[in-house]
Each structure stands twice: as structure tokens, then as C-alpha cells.
């Protein structure tokens, strides 16, 4: 177990294949939620009682009951508007690009280069979704971590590089901003889950082998 100071949430950081795979899946889900709007199949999956039950220990659900009560079409509209407000509009409070979030003069630039360098170094090819403009998008970086984690022990160095060189310099502040700005629970849940997942990779025993 490891404690995450930012959110108070803790996630088991066990260095076992099943735990690593579970964390990788959760990172991939966070990446998906940050990469694009929620579509109908994803909404249904997030609203599934099994998901709701699994999220209960974190005291947050991806989809609120009131939202669902409005009907799927209206719920998707609201989620899309919230997504646009948080991530898409110029000057959005949680612009998902590291360059923009950290005040660089230009989108992408050295931040995107760095992501591509780290990915290439560890044999990870970035396949950006159509609506992700540059590789310094938070979703790309979380997906890289998920992919590295999915390699098991063989991915430990990749996990370390993605964490230390890409995510840790900005992701904690990013998720803090997201927690503050998100109106709907979908991205509040991401803001709670994602930093806890990052922290789980930092803390022993998950990183024990990196100590040397």
C-alpha cells in the first residue's frame, strides 16, 4: 500500500502480474477518458453496476445517477459539454497538453519531442487518436505508462522513465487542477484515480527493484 498525498486515495502497488495488469487497465481507462469525449458504449460501461461497485472504495463513481436519469442522449451531451469546457476550449482549465498547461509558447515542441523520445527508447510506438494534436497530451503519457506496466518486470525501466521524465514534472498539478475544475464526477473520478495510480508505481514494493 502506498499513500497519495494529493487525493488521499491509496492503491495497492503490489509487484505481481495481476496487480500490474489491473493498474495498467485503470491507467488505460483514465487515458481513454482524457483522450476523447465519452461515447454511448463507454457511458454504458461506466454506468454499469459492477463498475459502480468497484469504484465504491474510492468514494466516487464515474457516472452520477442524476445524469443517467436524464436519458442517454442528454447525458452524452452534458458529458461532451463538460469535456469541451475542461479540455478542448482555448484556455481550458485543464488543457491536456503538457506544453500548454505548463505555459510553453508553443503546443507540443520539446514536451512532445520528449514523449516521443522516451517512447522510442523503450520500443513503444505512439498511435495518437485523431483528436489528440501532439504527443504531450496527458492521455498519451498515461497510455505509455499503462503499456510499460503491461510488460511486467521487463517494463520497469520504461515505467521509471515515463514516470520521472514525463508525468511527474506536471501530472500531479494537472490532476489537482482537474479535481478543482471538474463539475461532473466522471473527471473527478479520474482526478482521484490517476494520481493514486502514479503514486502506486512510485512506492515500494512496485519500485523496489529500481532502488539499485
Amino acid at each position: 500500500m502506498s499513500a497519495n498525498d494529493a487525493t488521499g486515495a491509496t492503491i495497492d502497488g503490489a509487484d505481481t502480474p495481476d496487480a500490474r495488469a489491473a493498474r495498467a487497465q485503470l491507467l488505460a481507462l483514465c487515458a481513454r477518458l482524457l483522450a476523447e469525449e465519452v461515447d454511448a458504449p463507454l457511458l454504458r460501461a461506466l454506468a454499469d453496476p459492477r463498475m459502480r461497485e468497484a469504484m465504491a472504495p474510492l468514494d466516487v463513481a464515474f457516472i452520477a445517477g442524476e445524469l443517467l436519469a436524464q436519458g442517454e442522449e442528454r447525458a452524452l451531451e452534458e458529458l461532451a459539454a463538460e469535456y469541451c469546457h475542461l479540455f478542448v476550449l482555448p484556455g481550458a482549465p485543464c488543457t491536456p497538453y503538457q506544453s500548454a498547461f505548463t505555459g510553453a509558447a508553443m503546443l507540443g515542441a520539446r514536451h512532445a519531442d520528449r514523449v516521443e523520445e522516451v517512447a522510442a527508447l523503450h520500443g513503444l510506438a505512439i498511435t495518437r487518436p485523431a483528436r489528440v494534436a501532439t504527443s504531450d497530451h496527458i492521455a498519451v503519457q498515461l497510455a505509455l505508462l499503462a503499456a510499460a506496466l503491461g510488460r511486467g518486470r521487463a517494463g520497469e525501466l520504461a515505467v521509471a522513465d515515463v514516470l520521472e521524465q514525463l508525468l511527474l514534472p506536471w501530472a500531479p498539478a494537472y490532476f489537482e487542477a482537474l479535481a478543482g475544475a471538474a463539475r461532473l464526477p466522471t473527471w473527478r473520478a479520474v482526478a482521484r484515480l490517476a494520481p493514486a495510480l502514479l503514486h502506486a508505481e512510485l512506492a515500494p514494493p512496485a519500485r523496489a527493484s529500481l532502488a539499485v
Partner: protein
Amino acid sequence: MDLNRRDLLRLGAAAAASLSAVGCAELTATRRADPAGWAGKSTGAITRIPTMCQSCTTACGVLATIKDGRLLQIVGNPEDPNSRGSVCAKGVAGPSILYDPFRVLYPLRRVGPRGSGQWRRITWEEAYAEIADKLKDIRERGHPEEFAFQQGRNRSADIINRFLDSYGTPSSFNHRALCSANRRAALLATVGDSDWDLGDYEHTDYILNFGCNWTEAMQGHIPIVTRIMQARANRGAKIVTFESRLSNTAAVSDEWFCVKPGTDGLIALALSHVICTEGLWNKAWLDRWSNYPADEYTRHLAPYTPELAERESGVPADTLRRLAREFAAKAPRCTTTSGRGSHAHYNGFYNDRAITVLNALVGNMGMEGGFCWHPLSTFDTKKQFPEPAPVPPKPTAKSVIADAKQWPLANAWNRMKVGEIVYLWIKERRQKISALMTYNTDQAWSWPEMQLVQEVLKDEELVPFHFCLDVMMSETAHLADLVLPWTTWLERWDIDARPPLGLIDYVGIRQPVVAPLGESKDVREIFPELARRIGGGMEQYFPWASVEEYLEQRYASVPGGFAFMRQHGAWIDPAKKPNYQPYERPLDAEELAGSSTDPQSGVITKGEDPKTKKPAAIGIVMDGVAVRGFTTPSRKLEVKSEAIVALGRGVDKVIEPLPVYLPIPDLAQGLADDQLIMISFKWNVHNAHRTMQSKWLMEIVSSNPAWMHPRTAKRLGLSQGDWIEVTGHRPRAGDVPRADGSPVGSQRTRVHLTEGVHPQVLAFSHNAGRWMGGPIAAPGSAADAWVPAPVGDRDAARVPWQDALRVPQNSLIPIYPDPTTGQQAWNDTVVRVRKA
């Protein structure tokens, strides 16, 4: 909250199920580690692609340095015959405009009340469908004029006009009246051939500059300033500037005279007075080419003494005499320049008429080193690079707003229109608007009385449907129903050229140097698609399969064609010569075949003028030789213009046939102690709303305090940096809409004390006061009521100009058209100033 191992595995399984349920594509894929491959990529080849800048309207040729598909650098293209390898900071900042972190990258649809800032991202398919449905309905109802198009800077006129003409709407609104209508009308009335004087600056010895800021802002500034500086270095050319503020142009001049706003025309008349009374003129040239006897003009100038000019403008009479003599002594290698300092006034048309005729007096018209022009303001769209067929006919529907008939010179030669009255007239319901497209303009911030523009754009009854194409979330986009992401000038195509400072027309190409960022698109892709969807015959005017195919046709007459243009960026026909003395060119036998000559005037006509339906003049017989002459009704340089008198008479307006000094009625009443004349100016690193999101440029200039003379400050009890409240007023007199002296708006700002401004003037630069577009353009500050709150970006706190002064000057400036042309009198606003 703890997520133990059991919880984790359960949640991981649920996540996996979610992802598989949506069939979500993985963001990454694993491959074999290939450090060598990466190393190869990191040293990828660098390419240089020529294109044309559009950070302002000068359209300099540039070279874009590209590596791995990313733009690294912009430098000038030496092959561009106009800019010849030079480029300004706005062009160099291209990468920061292309990769602006706060660009609009996806189509957006409003989901809350208009102006609420609530949007959702949509697809282009959704956007196309919605726009096409609306436009199709309007067109099929038989009222195409109800679709209005509002443009700002437009370097894609070919495709835009093709779309609007094929749709059938005449409601195409531009910003010419906010820019240069008086200058253009003065030239067209006097010279006829062109609406843009160029000056043979490179070969001149003397320049009288009337309020033109060519080192920073004038259309053509880089081609102009580089030539003028060469003339100074190589020929010792002298520059004398009359301007109400110490601009960078005034600063590089040999002499600067800080004049009262609106008196430039009187200065030109006083200089003319000296030239005529002292016989410094080129009488032989005047006798041959002026349509008004030199002696009569001398009598007309009698009241305009240097002493009168001194009283009104502040320039000493003796100095004016000296300058007149110097100017005439250098003829014909002397010229004038003029800009908004002279023509953005209530009396601006007459000011620039007087300045133009001043040149004629010394016989420098069309001479090497003199006052020149070129009949083409762009590439040769008629003969060398014609529009591919089929070309749609011009609309037959009428637009009350575009016609703006109460300003008789607005549309007399070109369709200049009266941009500043568009939203007032929509508000007054003079023309019904069912759909509005805004293109590369931010009228909600950049138009005079911007509050009125905002009010109209917010009103869903007045403007039921508004879609905006821009690279950024402008103040205008904020008030749209759909916002479409536009490509920057580094991601799109154009066939383009600007008035040639070398006096030989040329053609250039704007081409994508990188793939469009996000889902941005250009009108060259959008309009053909909309035409196909609207149908009804529109689609026939867009037969080509791609933009490249269209451009291949347009560049067919260039040796090497489209491929040559892509490689070099520009082409100039080596057979063409500079446009010196075009009026003296003899007409050849082919031109004269079938012509007839009026025995009294000597004017040669042939065929019918399609516009006037009268015989079309092609030249004039001078001393027994048929020559081209000037393209005025008399085929001479029209010191006296009966044509403008007749145009005025048509709408019950008196327009003076000769250049005169018209005191600005509102200013002629005098100013109270707390009243000043507000003028507007530009910096070299900014151009309208377009540059204010560039961090590189905002780091150079980001603030716009009020410039005030120390004497004035002392009178008002103000010190450097004091806060003031400025209230702008509508004029109290004159032929102006709502001339009732009522307040337009107030702003709070600080004073910047400098002797570089006229004591009766308060000067604001235009490059500030946006409240949309992200933390670079609008960092937010409690001191600035126009920025509601920090925009929420964490970076906002670190923007170094967080506390810069940001005054949206157009909240102070009234709608104030020159009564003849409709040009906005930017520099006549009377403001009240009090310590805040």
C-alpha cells in the same frame, strides 16, 4: 480511501471490460526497441519551403524551415520581388502563431445561451450539415442577401468571391472603411489608375510623410521601409514626418513635426501655396497633364497660407516654406507617403486629395524616384492568371448595408463599403440577416463602438445564425453558434501578391509548410464542400478535385507552372518594365482601331463602359499623339473633379471639386480643459487580434497605457503612472450618425507621460484589451474590468504581463464615418479625462 488488492483487481477487471466494450483503440502499441531508428529520426533532414506570410496584410515572401514535419523557423525569401528577403517580427513569430497553445483546433457548437461560453466539440460532418441546411433554406427562399459574410483580412478573395457570387449574396462586408477608404478614394478621384500609391522609394531623394507609420504598420511596410532605408543610405534621401505622435517612423525621420490631428491636408495645401506662389512648380507638366489651370489653382490656394497652417497644425510657417522649397527642389525625385494619420479623419478624403495634388504640382507623378503607382493591386487576375471557368455571375440581389448609398464615394470606384455602420444598421433592421459568417476578423473587439457589435451579435433575433471561421477563440467567435477551426497562413494555399513596390506586378504562392494542426481547414476546402451540399447549381463552379488542381490551372502561364511556384515562392515576368509615366504611353494601332476622339477634350473612346454604359475612354490626344493618359473621366490628372461633385449631388451632399481644408466640425467647437483628442496607433509587433495570442510578440509589447504630454498632465494634475478614467464621446456636430455628443464608453487606465505626443492628444495603441483567447491574449487582472476573471489556466499566474494595462480602445471610439467615403475617423474621438 484505500483500494486493496482485491478492490484493485475488481476495478481493473471493470476497467478492462469498459475498454473492451467500447472497442477503444489503444493509444500505444508495443514494438521492438529501436534506438538506432530514433537516432535516425532525430537527425532528420531539414527542408525549406517558400510561402507567403499573412501575419499582417503585407504578404512578404518567407522561407519556412521544417524538420520532422515541424516548423522551426521563418526567414525572408530573397526570391520574393516585393519583400526581397526581409521579414518583420510578426512573420518571424509564425511558429508561435501556428503552434499557439490556445488555438481553436476542432469545430465547436454552442450548447448554452449565445455568449455563455458553453460549447461542445462536434465533427466537420455535423458542422457542414448544419451550415448547408441553413444556407440552402435561405437561398431557396429567394433571399440570398440574407446570408451575410463579414471578412477581415482576406487573401483568398478568389475562392471567397466565387462562393458568395455562386450563392448569390451581395452582403459581403469588409473592413476597408476601417482601413484606407479615404486614401484610396483620393487617389482614384485624382489619378484614376490605382487606389494605392507606391512611391518609387528606392530611387527617391525626399519624402514628406503625412501620418504614415511605414516602419511598423502600413500595408506594404517591409517592402516600403527597406527601400526607403536604402534610399537614405545610398542617396542620402531626406525624410520629414508630420504626425501627432512620435512613432518609430517619426523617430527614424530627419525631421518630425508633432501636428494637431486632422490638419495634414491643410499642411499639404500650405506647402502647395508656397510652391505655386513662388513658382516652384513644374508648370510645363501641369499645363500638359492637370485638368485645372495652374494659375487658377494658385488662386484657390490663396487662403491656405503657411500662417493659417501654423495656427491650425502647430508647424511654424517659416518651416513650411523651407520644406516646400526643399521638396520642390528635389523634384521629380521626391514623393509623399500618407496613412491613417492623414486620412482616418472626418476630413480625411480632402486631406489625401490635397497631398496627392501636392505631388502633381512638382511634376513627380509616375517619375523615377517620384510618386508612383501600379494599376494592379495584386497579381494579374484578368490576363495572365484568369479564374478557371466556369466563373459565377455577380449577384443580382441587393444589400442595403453593402450599398450604403448615403456615402457617395464608398462604392463609386471599388466596392469599399462602410464597414463601421454594418452592425448599427442591422440593429436598426435596415436589412434582414438570417445567417452571418465571420471570417478572420474580430469585429466584437476591433470595430468602433464594439459594445454595439457585441449587442447585435448576441441578439438571436437580429442574427439568428452566426458561424465563425478563425484560428482562435476571438471575442467574435465567443458570440457565434458554430466556431470552425481555420488554418493559419502556414497551413494553407493561396495565389497572392501585393501592390508591387518595384512597380512591376508579380505573383506569389502561399502553400502549407506543415499539415494542418488539429482539424483546422481553409475556405478552399470548406466552400467547395458547402457548395456541393447546398447544390442548386452552386456546385458547378467548383469542378476541380483538389486545391492543387485549381492552382495548377491558375499558375499555368508561369514557366514551370505550379511546380516552379512551389519551389521558388514567387515569379515576376522578366519582360515587364516598371510602371513609370504610364499616362505618356502611346496607344498602338490595335488599341485605336474602331475608336473615336472627342474634338474638344481630345478624349479617345472605344466601345462601352460596362459599368456606366457610356462610351469607354481609352486615352487622350496630347499634342497630336494618342496616349493613354490618366484613367480619370478627363484622362488627365484631376486637380478638379466634377465626378465627385456629381456623385455627391446624387445623394444631396456637397462634395468640393478641389482639394480643401475642412475643419473637423466637432473639434472646431473647441475643447474643454478636460477634453483631449484620442488617437489610435499600432506597434510593429502587432496586427489586430491575430498577434495577441503569440507569446513571443506579447513579450515585446503587451500593454497600452494612455500617452499624454507632460504639459497636459500638469494641467490635469496628473503624474507618470497615475490612474485616469477616459470617456469617449460621439461627435457633437457633422454629418455623422447619432452626432449628439453622447458618451460611448469609459475605461480606466494609467498615463504614460511623454513629449512624444501632441499636447491636445491622448494616444492608445490598439494591441490590447482582449478578454477571450486564453492567458496570453487576456491574462486577466482584477484591475481590468473587461477581463471578468483569470481564465483558469495555471500558466496565467506566470504570464509576465499579468499586470499590463489592457484598454479595449474600441469601447471608447464612436462610429464616425467621413461623410464622403464612409472611412472611419479613428483619430477624431473627443474624450474626457479625469484622475481616477
